[in-house]
């Protein structure tokens, strides 16, 4: 009889990938809330990266933004409004809870030059590209 050798390495890799998948998604609730806030990522290979997120009603003091060379993390809470006594919700569509988003950056950035600002409920984070990483024009010398 001919038997296929049992490939432990493939199974193990699959198990590790599944663990990683569930590990990151377990921290966030499923459904729409998993994507609050929505982010847009803009990039320019010379300048760097700009990340924008719509965070209406979140005051800047509550935001916790941290950045490593290639990942941006935005943590914070949008607390629900304090309702007066005897008040009742007719409709509740806005996400009001803790949120945490990690964005993988397309380029390595200079963490010392990162700036963030909020205007009208939109958070904009500018992440300039690390100087050493910027593309350099290479001149072709001809001879003869």
């Amino acid at each position, binding site marked *: 009889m001919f038997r296929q050798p049992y490939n432990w390495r493939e199974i193990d890799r699959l198990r590790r990938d599944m663990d990683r998948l569930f590990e990151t998604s377990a921290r966030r609730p499923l459904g*729409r809330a998993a994507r609050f806030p929505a982010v*847009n990522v803009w990039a320019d290979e010379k300048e760097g990266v*700009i990340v924008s997120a719509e965070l*209406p*009603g979140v005051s800047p003091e509550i935001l916790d933004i941290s950045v490593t060379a290639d990942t941006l993390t935005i943590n914070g809470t949008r607390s*629900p409004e304090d309702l007066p006594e005897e008040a009742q919700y*007719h409709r509740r569509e806005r*996400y009001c809870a803790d949120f945490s988003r990690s964005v993988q950056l397309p380029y390595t950035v200079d963490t010392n030059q990162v700036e963030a600002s*909020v205007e*009208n409920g939109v958070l904009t984070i500018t992440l300039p590209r690390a100087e050493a990483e910027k593309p350099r024009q290479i001149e072709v010398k001809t001879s003869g």
Partner: protein
Amino acid sequence: MTDELQTQKQEAEIMEGVERTRASRVYLPQVDIYSASDDIVILADMPGVAEKDIDITLEKDVLTINGYVSTADGPEGYELVHGEYGIGDYQRSFTLPDEVDRDNIEASLSNGVLRVTLPKAPEAQTRKITVKAV
């Protein structure tokens, strides 16, 4: 995974035969509505809208909130690498219940959240009724 991306921002429905004069997309702002003893409050998420760009109109029984956004394009020269939300104007309409005192509706905008306070007409305010023991 793509079905998650557009569920955040819902596009407003276009009325038959009516077009907007502005070229941008129109979204439905997400709202929380609650009713307290003497007023009804609407909180609408309108990120990117400045106070001067809000239009609230009341026609018969229908309250319409409009928010206009000025920066529909991204930063100059940059390429969109990952887009989860579109940028555009906001519009949503609500039919008001009879009990709203239409002359005293107030609105304010803070951090991209529009707050519309609709006071209930005095006759409609909840009154506590005490039960006397006989």
